[in-house]
């Protein structure tokens, strides 16, 4: 594996790490990863670093990078945020193609990064696979049927009482990280940080999302969805079909971790998600031994915690 710190984009304002395998899989798409919420490009708990390095072991090239104005990338002057984000992703793909010759892409996004992912997949035919990690979810009747289970864990309530003092004493620690109810940014601070600022989100409604997925599948884009069930709007595997009208299949892979939370706070859940994401890409695009018959599609994996 070789990792290169790279700067790219028409204005040279974007920063990232190009991770190249020792033995690339011929014809495999390059994987793109970018900011999760306000985290810089390493992602929550460094998840993108773990994924990129595992992908490289499996023969996949990846670029993890900061969108303009975030992490180590400089702000892009002019244009609104949607235009900027599109330009960021376009420039990332152009850079990877110029540097490696790879012309197809498998972007993978997490949480708020889904907004850019979804838009990119719909508008750009170079995208041949997409990974949605903790993407859009809508509360279905099935969700509400399962919802009470979330709070029926006696150990959880017992612990809440046991740790009451500890939680109260957290205030002492918080002096290092002064919380406030509202976020205030003075212009000078934003300017001093090179224009890094907060973000706004745009998401489709449920009907539009379902229609969009059908469009992507009509183009034969391979889809991967990872949902976590602990503190989220998704709490049982069947909810995916309830939301989208689309049954999981080999081309629409669903990975559900009921015991994981939205930010993958536990390392085991993070590791499982990284392994599963990598396994999906290997299954779809991975190296095959000479003469090997393509792998028969396995049943969609459901890991219910």
């Amino acid at each position, binding site marked *: 594996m070789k990792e290169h710190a790279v700067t790219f984009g028409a204005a040279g304002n974007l*920063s990232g790490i190009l991770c190249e395998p020792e033995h690339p899989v011929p014809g495999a798409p390059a994987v793109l990863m970018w900011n999760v919420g306000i985290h810089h490009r390493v992602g929550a708990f460094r998840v993108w670093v773990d994924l990129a390095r595992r992908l490289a072991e499996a023969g996949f090239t990846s670029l993890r990078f900061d969108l303009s104005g975030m992490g180590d990338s400089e702000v892009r002057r002019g244009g609104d945020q949607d235009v900027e984000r599109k330009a960021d992703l376009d420039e990332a793909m152009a850079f990877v193609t110029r540097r490696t010759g790879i012309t197809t892409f498998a972007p993978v996004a997490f949480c708020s990064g889904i907004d850019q992912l979804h838009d990119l997949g719909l508008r750009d035919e170079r995208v041949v696979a997409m990974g949605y990690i903790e993407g859009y979810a809508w509360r279905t009747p099935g969700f509400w049927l399962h919802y009470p289970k979330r709070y029926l864990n006696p150990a959880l309530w017992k612990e809440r009482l046991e740790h009451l003092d500890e939680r109260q004493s957290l205030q002492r620690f918080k002096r290092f990280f002064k919380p406030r109810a509202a976020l205030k940014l003075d212009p000078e601070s934003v300017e001093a940080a090179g224009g890094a600022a907060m973000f706004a989100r745009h998401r489709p409604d449920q009907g539009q999302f379902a229609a969009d997925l059908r469009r992507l599948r009509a183009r034969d884009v391979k889809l991967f969805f990872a949902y976590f069930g602990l503190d989220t709007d998704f709490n049982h595997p069947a909810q995916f079909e309830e939301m989208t009208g689309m049954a999981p299949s080999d081309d629409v892979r669903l990975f559900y971790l009921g015991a994981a939370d939205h930010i993958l706070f536990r*390392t085991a859940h993070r590791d499982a998600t990284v392994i599963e994401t990598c396994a999906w890409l290997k299954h779809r695009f991975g190296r095959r031994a000479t003469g090997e018959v393509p792998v028969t599609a396995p049943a969609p994996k459901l890991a219910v915690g």
Partner: protein
Amino acid sequence: MRSFFFGAGRRLYGTLHEARGSARSTAVLLCSPGVQEYNMTHWAFRKLAGLLNREGLHVMRFDYSYTGDSDGDVADTNLTHQVEDIATAAEELKDQTGLRRVAVIGMRLGAALATQAVARGLRAESLLLWEPVFHGVDYIHDLERLDTEVSMRRLHEVHEPRLELGGYPFPGQLRDALAGIALKMHVPKSAGQVAMFLAEESPEATETELLWKRTGVPTRVKVVREQSGGVRHGAGIGDSAVLYTEMLDAIAGELAGPRAVAA
């Protein structure tokens, strides 16, 4: 802003923020907090680098081994290696800028590690310690409390012994190494001056100040009230960011004295 990998053996990721206009003769190395607090202070460090650039100072940020984009897995974290990383980064900063004088700013665990690096011989014109970890045991308790808070909020159970904290592996050898930290015992003899920046008065800071002064190291404590910000967006490890205003201004101001422009 220019990013690169450096270091022999363990490859480290660094970012150089080059000063605007004429540069001063001292460059600044920023040492981030421990991995559990790193992501939520990334923005603040970038802002601090920008403020220092305005004052004509070249600034370098870097990721310790086992963190960020640098080599290694968090589960294998070795504090001795991370102290060595600071010295390696200081040399890289000198090479990148052509300057021979370095000031070091460390936050929380980064302050404790930077102090150890200076105690072991890294020459620092100024050593600025931002909310330093005075006692490793207290630091572990802080992380445990925050871990509990996030675990409860995220509906996780908390299992003892805790083999992970704040969303990262926390193996026994790391716990032991952290528990052994006692800031005052690492006298930063190679520092021209030391300043501690705190949000509140602290008996540990006063004790450390007196002890280091007695050994001949000019040391001061500065209390900076964060009036307008120090804002944390969200309320937990790993899904939040911390913003500062007065503290960053105070730290940048400390190094903003009269310019002695590099030859």
